[in-house]
């Protein structure tokens, strides 16, 4: 089971890099959706925590991160007729290299942290740090609102990975709150994206520069 779990975590980390290197926004959304599906399978693979709780978490994660949120993002993208990140703040190859360096650093950091014996051979901590920092990176180096929302989702995915270490001990309420907040957050992002488009006729956040010193 641990091997299957580590394989999935490796896939998630690979998807971080692929998303960082993609120029088409549709493909970024697809990679994030695939990442969501992989995350949804993970609770079922964690050893020692086969409570009934893992099923609703898995189903909700697949539904939200794998299907609902990506489709909301795709809809927002269709309404504004954009497809490509034309002028990224950092080119695709440099962001890929930076992402790879971040991933290596994060996995090394994860390996240095003291872990419980049952988590010692799982990559969850390192994978979590890597995904969260790649998400931050994606938010910083891209200027389109939808790509930034994708980066935010990647950051949330990284946090979710860490949450899996705690799934046996954290009460249900916390898990539910996380999923609920995530949906609402993206729902609100969708509305704001819509409004930015109406007001500025563009989804490029680099035109949002009236307010500065």
């Amino acid at each position: 089971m641990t091997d299957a779990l580590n394989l999935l975590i490796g896939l998630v980390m690979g998807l971080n890099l692929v998303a960082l290197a993609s120029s088409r926004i549709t493909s970024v959304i697809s990679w994030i959706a695939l990442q969501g599906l992989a995350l949804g399978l993970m609770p079922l693979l964690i050893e020692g925590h086969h409570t009934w709780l893992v099923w609703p978490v898995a189903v909700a994660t697949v539904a939200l991160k794998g299907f609902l949120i990506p489709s909301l993002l795709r809809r927002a993208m269709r309404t504004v007729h954009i497809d490509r990140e034309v002028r990224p703040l950092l080119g695709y190859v440099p962001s890929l290299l930076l992402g790879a360096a971040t991933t290596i650093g994060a996995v090394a950091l994860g390996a240095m942290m003291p872990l419980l014996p049952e988590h010692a051979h799982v990559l969850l901590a390192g994978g979590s740090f890597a995904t969260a920092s790649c998400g931050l990176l994606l938010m910083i180096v891209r200027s389109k609102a939808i790509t930034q929302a994708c980066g935010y989702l990647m950051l949330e995915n990284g946090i979710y990975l860490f949450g899996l270490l705690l799934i046996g001990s954290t009460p249900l309420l916390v898990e539910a709150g996380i999923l609920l907040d995530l949906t609402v957050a993206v729902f609100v992002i969708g509305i704001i994206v819509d409004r930015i488009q109406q007001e500025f006729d563009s989804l490029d956040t680099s035109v949002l520069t009236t307010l500065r010193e």
Partner: protein
Amino acid sequence: MMELILVLLPFAGAGLALIWRGRRTRPYLLPVVGVGHAVVTTLLLLSPAEVDAGAWISSDALTRAVLPLVSLLFLVCGFYAVAYLRVREDRDHRIFVAALLAMQGLLSLALQAQHLGLLWIAAEATTLATIPLLHFNGTARAFEATWKYLLIGGTGIALSLLGAFCLGYASLQGTGGGDLTFRALTGSASTFATPWLVAAWVLLLAGFGTKMGLVPMHTWKPDAYGEAPGVVGVLLAGGVTTMAFVALLRVKQVVDAGGGTEMTQRTLLLIGLFSMVVAALFLLGTRDFKRMLAYSSVEHMGILAVGAAAGGAGIAAALFHVWTNGLTKASLFLAAGNLRRAAGASTVGEVAGMAWRVPVTSRLFVVGLLAITAIPPFGPFASVMSVVRAIFATGQPVSAAVFLFAMLLSFIGLTRLVFAIVDGRPRTRARGTGPQFAEARGILVPPLLFLLGSLWFGVAVPEPIRRQWDLAVRMLMPPS
């Protein structure tokens, strides 16, 4: 029971606001809920209940030390909002009223949360509830501010969740068993592994520091405060930042119990002084009086962080400053809102001679300015002095010097800007366009009340409230 009423009453009001049909009567829900909330808070303050050991929601000494302020701000702002929304007939206020009420419910929940996960959920939901409040004006600039708030605030809140998980994992590894109530965390913190404690402190400081608006995570603040209505500014600057500060104090208590006192005090002192200096430098340059209030707020958040770093006396001084800053800033935000409406603009280039056009508001604004720059006999003078005294008591004269220098710079910056817009001849643009702005009683009395409150705290602090500050310090720093 009373604790739950404080949370549920505003939520009931929010639900009612959503289905309320009368457009003119809907804003009255705000003062009605405000009165109810204030009454329950007062009862709680006068007859504090025993804190239940395992409870997730209960008001301990730290809650009682600041909750009355949040309740008071909401009460007076509720009355102001009735008058304000009457002027703003052009905007639909169904969502606005509901979001304001929901925010008050969430703030009450977050201040009373004894469980880190619950506290996080309330903080995240507060971020979401703020969004409709920020783009109430519906302008392009308001949307820009909202987007930045969402992105920066969302990232901050995400990092603080990761920090909460680190703390949870440390507890699972130690003897805490993954119990995230603050009591259990503090009790078992000495068994936590140091790397996890450090990671948790860094992430939670970054996360809640973003909500407070500490440099370098403050960049959402000028935009949000500059574009939001005055009432929203009051609740952000006096309510949301207070909630984040209380959250930081609770986390600090846990990390301190794990042996990290030196780390938490050093980081807080450094980030606090850095915030003060950076904010003071921006105050010297800014040309917009609403953004000026945001930088002033960043500076005062720095003062809170410095106070929290200066031991028990420092924390008591910081809680004192939460009150004086909240009341004085509230008066300034409401007066600034009036000035903005009367002038139709908010930068030095476009606004001048406001003393001619809105004499009462201008006077309130100038007196508020003197109060916030720590001129006696107003509250901020007394609280800033106690913070400075606490820094000296910990033997750090250099920090105290930097602190006072930043205060001086910000005094120069603030007075420069305020007198530029108050004095002089009214600009043609401000004179010519729009109907004459009438200084109705409904928008003058609330800022005046806040200013009087600030004066009251400067002259004599009410004894029941001061006692809660001392109890809170005793709770956070048990004598060893």
